[in-house]
């Protein structure tokens, strides 16, 4: 198990280095960082000094190594547009995005598994057909339209929920949470539904398909032949076998919730990283883009690791495989 975790950790590190290389290349080759920071009117002297101070005169591998070293400490320099340290910008906005993404992920997984199991068990029921058709419409519905639709109904017409922002937040150290106030919680509802909806339809369809597949397996027939009740077969025997493939794909999907938050945050003017990134793209603010890219990659690596560990917990075949590998 240890060896297996180490291997996926090494793979994750490799992905991080590859993404870091892309981020670094953006830094180095998109526009001239010196011009970007000093403006067109700076003197030659100023430019030479800054070039030296930024280490831009060093050989390429040295610069890349420095970049990775800085990135590991969360330092990506100063935003071209806002003139503030990128690490500060990220830290301010991280809680908003993480709270949104985490709640969406929980919503999408929970509701997705429930609906998927329901649709699989009551295969030809009216409600499951409705849910399945709805999910197909959902795939064709762009995220931003869902958000706009929710805003129109619940903020403009019914005036139940705020249409933008996080509401009041409470500071716990450097972490600003919206979970502790009424207005903060109300503000979360629509963004969470919007962000979670796409993943929900995806997970639901996946769970249904996998479960129907598992229900055709021989061991299910054998369980019936042993006299096990249908509900026990569905919820004990079939569900666990269903969840193994679902965990992988759902896990990867949830990693992308962070990136999908870009759209949701724009619709709800949510002060998170996604909105920061969209602004950076509009103005080619390379340090912010690079930092965001590294952040998303890091989230992916962490999610992958968690998925691998969950896999171990769920599938005994892997556990003994790892035991064997360790024995040799």
């Amino acid at each position, binding site marked *: 198990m240890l060896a297996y975790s180490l291997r996926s950790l090494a793979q994750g590190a490799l*992905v991080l280095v*590859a993404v870091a290389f892309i981020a670094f290349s*953006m830094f180095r080759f*998109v*526009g001239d960082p010196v011009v970007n920071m000093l403006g067109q009117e700076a003197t030659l002297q100023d430019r030479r000094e800054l070039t030296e101070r930024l280490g831009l005169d060093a050989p390429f591998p040295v610069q890349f190594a420095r970049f990775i070293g800085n990135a590991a400490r969360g330092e990506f320099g100063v935003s071209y547009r806002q003139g503030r340290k990128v690490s500060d910008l990220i830290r301010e906005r991280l809680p908003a995005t993480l709270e949104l993404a985490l709640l969406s992920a929980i919503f999408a997984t929970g509701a997705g598994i429930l609906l998927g199991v329901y649709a699989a068990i009551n295969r030809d029921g009216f409600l499951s057909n409705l849910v399945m058709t709805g999910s*197909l*419409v959902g*795939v*064709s*519905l*762009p*995220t*931003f*339209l869902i958000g*706009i639709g929710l*805003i*129109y109904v619940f903020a*403009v017409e019914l005036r139940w929920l705020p*249409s933008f922002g996080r509401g009041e937040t409470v500071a716990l150290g450097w972490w600003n949470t919206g979970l502790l106030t009424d207005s903060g919680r109300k503000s979360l509802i629509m963004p969470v539904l919007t962000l979670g909806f796409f993943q929900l339809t995806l997970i639901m369809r996946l769970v249904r398909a996998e479960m129907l597949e598992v229900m055709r397996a021989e061991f299910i027939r054998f369980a019936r032949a042993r006299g096990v009740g249908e509900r026990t077969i569905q919820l004990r025997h079939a569900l666990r076998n269903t969840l193994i493939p679902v965990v992988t794909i759902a896990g*990867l999907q949830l*990693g*992308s919730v962070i*990136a*999908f938050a*870009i*759209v949701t945050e*724009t619709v709800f003017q949510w002060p998170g990283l996604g909105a920061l*990134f*969209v602004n*950076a*793209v*509009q*103005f*080619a603010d*390379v340090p912010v*883009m690079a930092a965001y*890219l590294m952040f*998303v990659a890091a989230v*992916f690596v962490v999610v992958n690791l968690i998925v691998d560990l969950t896999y171990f917990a769920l599938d005994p075949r892997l556990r003994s495989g790892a035991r064997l590998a360790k024995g040799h």
Partner: protein
Amino acid sequence: MRSHEPETAPPENVSPAPEPRLPALARAWDSDLAHAFRSSPVAMLSALIALTMIGAAVLAPLIAPQNPFNPAELNLMEGMTRPGQANEFTGRSFLFGSDPQGRDMLSAVLYGARVSLLVGAASVAFSAVFGVVLGLMAGYLGGRVEAIIMRIADIQLSFPAILIALLIFGVARGVIPPAQQEDATLILLILAIGLSNWAQYARTVRGSTLIEKGKEYVQAARVIRRPAFVIMLRHILPNVMGPVTVIATINLALAIIEEATLSFLGVGMPPTQPSLGTLIRVGQQFLFSGEWWILFFPALMLVLLALAINLIGDWLRDALNPRLK
């Protein structure tokens, strides 16, 4: 497949041209795919909707009531007319209403759909060609070429397309001088969306290529030393077109949504040459004051278009039944 040549010469009073075409048409009508199509009401309805919308969008300059982006045709007095109601000053009525500048929303939607479809179709064509070529190379050549291509595809597939498109777009913004950025947007969008979607084609085509490569006819072609690219194009490509068509159809819906999303985020088509996404972005600000139609009709067009194409893609996947995951 080659059409069956008639053995006897055609009678002289019949022109030879339509002769071989008729059986071809009849064959197409009689094929399994056509049968499946005629027995699926959902597919037929979706095709009807999609074709109507595509037709209306392509013919927009001919059928739209006005050119919504020619200032000379707009009348400010006619601004904010409700759908189907007569304007209080001029008495003119607009089926889909009008925006604050007196622009007919029906015309705006038709022109917007035209831009959306153009970007969607072009980016799908781009990613399909790019992905198929890389997939063929990976599958046929193998070795290091395969390892590198598939590794990049794997990494890219684990990130959402919208993020990749945004990055490509942002980088291009940094490289292209500001003065030319607006003109370049269309091309940039096509490239960004196209480049963010090639990996799925490459993966599928590589898989099919590996299967075809092992078959006898390809082995025979290799034995007689046909050049690699001839074998790939003549022998392998036709056999992977089924899955590619399915992916391309579904991707067309995705690309249209992706373009709308980018434009909605403000990094796509500018308001002077709007796509459906831009129109929705602009319309959003009128939602709070109750002028819902400025947003509603572009949104409806977008959803119907995406849904119809998605349903066709779904049906096509079932009908052709290639092994897709």
